[in-house]
């Protein structure tokens, strides 16, 4: 199987790139957090602590070591899946992240699926029916949508559906968590819709332009000349061709939604990964901030990996080429 072998070779090469990217990400995070002013030890001592206390805190955090030694120590910890313990609560950071992800991951995944279900048909419609009024309306609305910050959409939805209509709660997450799925979903409805709207606005524009490219292509004209009907030609040849650029955009959108959850979680007071990052920043809880950022970066890189792989599977022309993007 030449095809299987080529894909396997690609997976191996792309995995190597993934590992190198993780190392670079670890280095970038480490440098950003170290080179900027402010000693991580400051989080451990109160204002006006005497030099001895500060020195002890520095030893505990490891910020008294030379920067190279700190980096080696940090990589060693990452290698053994040790993200340290929170300065504030003392809970292992990895454990806390795991708990927070049970909210952030379903929130992101549901919103992602919702955005695809909304944006694909609307984007294709906007392209195919661009001469009709509703095609134009879809284009203009999605264009305006990208100018609206996610938190304002959240606030507007709260104003309309929680304050006025009282259909959904404005904030919080039930303490029963996912043991009562209906209550959890009811609580997450507005946050999910918020993300769906923001994500769809940019997604619709990409789907529309991908569809327009397909519609202007020579192969579509050939298929039509050979007797295929318009929608038949579009479905048989268009979807696979149009999917290639859309998949890479989907990867970027999914990644930025995972991280963009910070804002949405604040709007709706949800105890997810984003609020952990935010409270970590407010309390100067270094291990939590570093841990959340590292885990989010890993997720972003893995999503990128999956998107690249999916692209290869859809587009045979890409299979022989290497993984680097230019």
């Amino acid at each position, binding site marked *: 199987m030449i095809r299987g072998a080529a894909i396997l070779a690609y997976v191996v090469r792309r995995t190597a790139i993934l590992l190198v990217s993780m190392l*670079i990400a670890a280095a970038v995070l480490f440098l950003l957090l170290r080179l900027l002013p402010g000693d991580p030890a400051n989080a451990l001592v109160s204002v006006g602590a005497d030099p001895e206390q500060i020195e002890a805190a520095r030893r505990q955090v490891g910020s008294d070591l030379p920067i190279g030694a700190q980096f080696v120590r940090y990589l060693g910890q990452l290698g053994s899946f040790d993200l340290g313990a929170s300065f504030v609560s003392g809970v292992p950071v990895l454990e806390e992240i795991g708990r927070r992800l049970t909210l952030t991951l379903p929130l992101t995944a549901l919103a992602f699926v919702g955005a695809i279900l909304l944006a694909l048909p609307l984007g294709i419609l906007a392209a195919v029916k661009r001469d009709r009024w509703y095609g134009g309306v879809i284009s203009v609305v999605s264009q305006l949508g990208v100018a609206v910050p996610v938190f304002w959409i959240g606030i507007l939805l709260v104003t309309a559906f929680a304050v006025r209509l009282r259909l959904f709660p404005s904030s919080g997450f039930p303490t029963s968590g996912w043991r009562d799925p209906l209550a959890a979903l009811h609580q997450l409805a507005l946050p999910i819709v918020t993300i769906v709207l923001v994500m769809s606005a940019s997604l619709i524009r990409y789907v529309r332009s991908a569809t327009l490219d397909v519609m202007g292509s020579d192969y579509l004209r050939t298929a039509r000349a050979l007797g295929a009907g318009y929608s038949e030609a579009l479905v048989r040849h268009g979807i696979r061709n149009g999917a290639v650029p859309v998949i890479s955009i989907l990867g970027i959108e999914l990644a930025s939604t995972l991280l963009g959850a910070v804002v949405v979680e604040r709007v709706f007071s949800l105890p997810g990964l984003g609020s952990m990052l935010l409270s970590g920043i407010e309390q100067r809880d270094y291990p939590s901030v570093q841990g959340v950022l590292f885990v989010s970066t890993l997720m972003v890189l893995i999503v990128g990996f999956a998107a690249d792989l999916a692209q290869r599977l859809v587009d045979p022309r890409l299979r022989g080429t290497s993984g680097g993007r230019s």
Partner: protein
Amino acid sequence: MTDAIPTLARASSLRLTPAFLVGAALVGLHVVVGLMTLLWTPYDPTAMTGGRLALPSLAHWAGTDRLGRDLFTEIMIGARIALAVGTGAVAIAAVIGVTIGLLAAFASRTVDDVLAATLDILIAFPTLLLAMLIVAASDGASLGTAILAIGVAASAIVARLTRILARRVLAMDYITAARVSGTGWLGIIRIHVLPNIWPTLIVNFALQFGLAVIAEASLSYLGLGAPPPNASWGRLLQEAQATVYTAPFGAIAPGLALVSLVIGLNLFADGLRDVADPTRRRR
């Protein structure tokens, strides 16, 4: 089409597309209002001038906030803050981004690969998160850290764009000719690269300006922007959310101001692109 010679008349008529005019008008309005607040505002922005959480009236066009301050005055000052952050952040992104992008374009293959991979990772991070990281690592949030953070975050995008554009120019035959005839690399940048890439860069700067305005509002919404009494739109919205059950109007007006500026900037950028890139005009 009778497009034999692109005359000056046609070029100027292109500039006057309705979308571009609307964009320029919206941006211009915000600039005028923002500059005006330096000299005059309807009320003292910190003074309690009316009842708390009053509805819009002739005296208070956008109502009052939870302390009875005039919301319209605060929104006007918000325009000044948004424009200051946008200008500062884009300036930083332009200097850092164009420099790194040009370096990568001229560098050896290995250096270029490492720079490109690092830029890709930085770009994978949303601007906002990178900005939060920088605000977190510096000593407390201020207008300065917000500008710096957003500027640095945006410079990765500018760097990647500059690198791609510059490499495209550097692959041209006339660059080889210039090198053979003894033009140094600084000369090549000044004579050949910059004049060819700046139109695209300017369009990108306009888009980055809009993204910076959103990023600043988001940072202040999260409490990581300029501290009070700076009436950033993001902070106004955050405060309004707390009183949304009693006074929903306060949650709307600052958002409208913000969105109108960003839409204006996007339309403005689209219009600039049509002028800068003639191949797009017939679309």
